[in-house]
């Protein structure tokens, strides 16, 4: 669609109207926009005067679609929101349902959820590091990170049968128990991984080019960050150690000993350091969760919400009835609303879920960290060079599927 200059007038400076500055369109198909993000830039030479993000290219109407499906079936769509944090989305949605209908989750399922979401956090941070470094011309880091991410995707495939969209977490627990070979594979990966982090750091942390491109770029003060509702590593790199896993523990995170890395500089380099330290802390959490892994069932036994196992169907009439009811009608949730939030690799991922007494959600709202965090891009970009804008998009770690839903 064509947009006339009149419609843009209020967004750009007066100098754009006289032709003193240049309006330039970046994206939505630009390689460094990490998805379909379009930026309208007002440039004075190479300096960004104004940056106007335009999102919505990946809007798939998931919130509307979920209203037409039962609670169980809608879970499949949650993987597709933030495609680097599929299990984290599952978790936020399942926790919202469990809170809404007051459903228990067995301890083993809680521990499995911790291990899997933390592995997912590693994989998401690896993609962030890979693409961020690639934008800043460090090609080899990209290849190294994807090498390790591949091993995490293999683990996901082993557990959930799929590399990415597993829908492995279900209301009341997880889909099935972990296979036997899971433990040696993950332990092998964890033994290897800290050395890999050292490798990435050796390539970047003291690299003068990388430091030049990141230090003092996009400085965000903690006051501004709070005003704009920024959460996650970006807030922590500005000096506030807010992490939902510590502040409002879920899935038994209170049992695990880990630190929330913070930094005070608030620039792109600080955000890099915080995320690198998060990789190490995440490895710590996974180790502890594997060591403490309790035995027992992996899904709730509440048959009003969780279908019975296949083996019971052959000799229990009651199991057949429950199975039939759950797969045709689904379960009913009370007419009330809950909000449940988890710490995704990008910040607070919240689900607002409202029921109406029937088997389908009346309203599902996703409070996605990328949408909120992306809003600070114009603030950060002002006065920087176009080349630095590329670093800033990377440092916000935006996932457009998460923004547009």
């Amino acid at each position: 669609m064509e947009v006339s200059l009149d419609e843009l007038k209020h967004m750009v400076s007066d100098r754009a109207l006289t032709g003193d500055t240049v309006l330039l369109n970046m994206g939505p198909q630009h390689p460094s926009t990490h998805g379909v993000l379009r930026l309208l830039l007002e440039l004075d030479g190479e300096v960004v005067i104004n940056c106007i993000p335009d999102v919505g290219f990946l809007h798939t109407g998931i919130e509307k679609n979920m209203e037409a499906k039962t609670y169980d079936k809608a879970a499949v769509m949650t993987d597709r929101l933030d495609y680097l944090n599929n299990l984290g989305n599952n978790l936020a949605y399942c926790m919202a349902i469990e809170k809404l209908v007051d459903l228990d989750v067995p301890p083993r399922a809680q521990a499995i959820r911790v291990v899997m979401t933390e592995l997912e956090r590693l994989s998401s941070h690896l993609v962030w590091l890979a693409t961020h470094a690639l934008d800043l011309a460090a090609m080899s880091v990209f290849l190294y990170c994807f090498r390790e991410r591949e091993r995490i995707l293999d683990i996901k495939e082993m557990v959930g049968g799929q590399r990415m969209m597993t829908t492995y977490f279900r209301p009341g627990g997880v889909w099935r128990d972990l296979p036997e070979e899971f433990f040696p594979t993950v332990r092998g990966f964890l033994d290897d991984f800290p050395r890999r982090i050292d490798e990435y750091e050796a390539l970047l942390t003291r690299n003068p080019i990388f430091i030049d491109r990141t230090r003092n770029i996009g400085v965000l003060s903690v006051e501004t960050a709070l005003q704009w509702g920024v959460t996650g590593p970006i807030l922590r790199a500005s000096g506030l150690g807010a992490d939902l896993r510590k502040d409002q523990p879920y899935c038994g995170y209170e049992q695990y000993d880990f630190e929330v890395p913070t930094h005070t500089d608030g620039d792109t380099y600080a955000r890099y350091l915080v995320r690198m330290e998060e990789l190490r802390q995440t490895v710590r959490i996974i180790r502890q969760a594997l060591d403490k892994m309790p035995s027992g069932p992996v899904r709730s036994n509440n048959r009003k919400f969780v279908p019975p196992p296949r083996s019971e169907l052959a000799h229990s009439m009651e199991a057949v009835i429950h199975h039939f009811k759950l797969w045709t009608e689904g379960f009913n949730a009370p007419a009330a609303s809950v909000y449940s939030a988890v710490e995704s690799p990008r910040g607070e991922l919240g689900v607002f879920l409202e029921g109406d007494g029937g088997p389908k959600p009346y309203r599902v709202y996703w409070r996605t960290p990328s949408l909120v965090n992306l809003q600070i891009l114009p603030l950060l970009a002002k006065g920087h060079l176009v080349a630095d804008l590329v670093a800033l998009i990377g440092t916000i770690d935006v996932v457009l599927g998460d923004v547009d839903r």
Partner: protein
Amino acid sequence: MNESLSSAIQTFQEEFGLSSSEFRGQYSLTLSGDKLLPVCQGLRDRFGFEILAGQTAVDYWPQQDPRFHVVYQLRSLQHNSRLSLRALVPGMQPSLPSLTSVYPNADWHEREVWDMFGIHFEGHPDLRRILMPADWEGHPLRKDYPLGYEEVQFSFNKEEIAARKPKPAV
């Protein structure tokens, strides 16, 4: 419930006559649109709710009046608590004051609610559609927005659904 949250709820119940509700340990205040700005200002400055975590709306058409509830999720980092606000908005020319002066990040949230529900925010600096194309008609998350799929007809509701089906123009 921690102390600051209970005192916040009590204060606003007394000062503004708001009703509060609780479900599974989560607290919510219900208010009309004209009280929204002073209440949010007070929650931010006096009770430490620094972050507007999320904002959305729920459409209760046709069964409830007022038709829309705009739901705000506030989060306090210093007191580690959460509170949600529900602003009641009537269905005819729905409108609310914009929160951008209190929480700047309400900017995109309000654009999204405008885009999806057609609720207008007075004083918003740049209220355009955000997710749907600029020339889109209608507001998709409203309950009267057609879903676009064909309903399954059974013998008991065959006529009822047939009557609802769009007829080709003659």
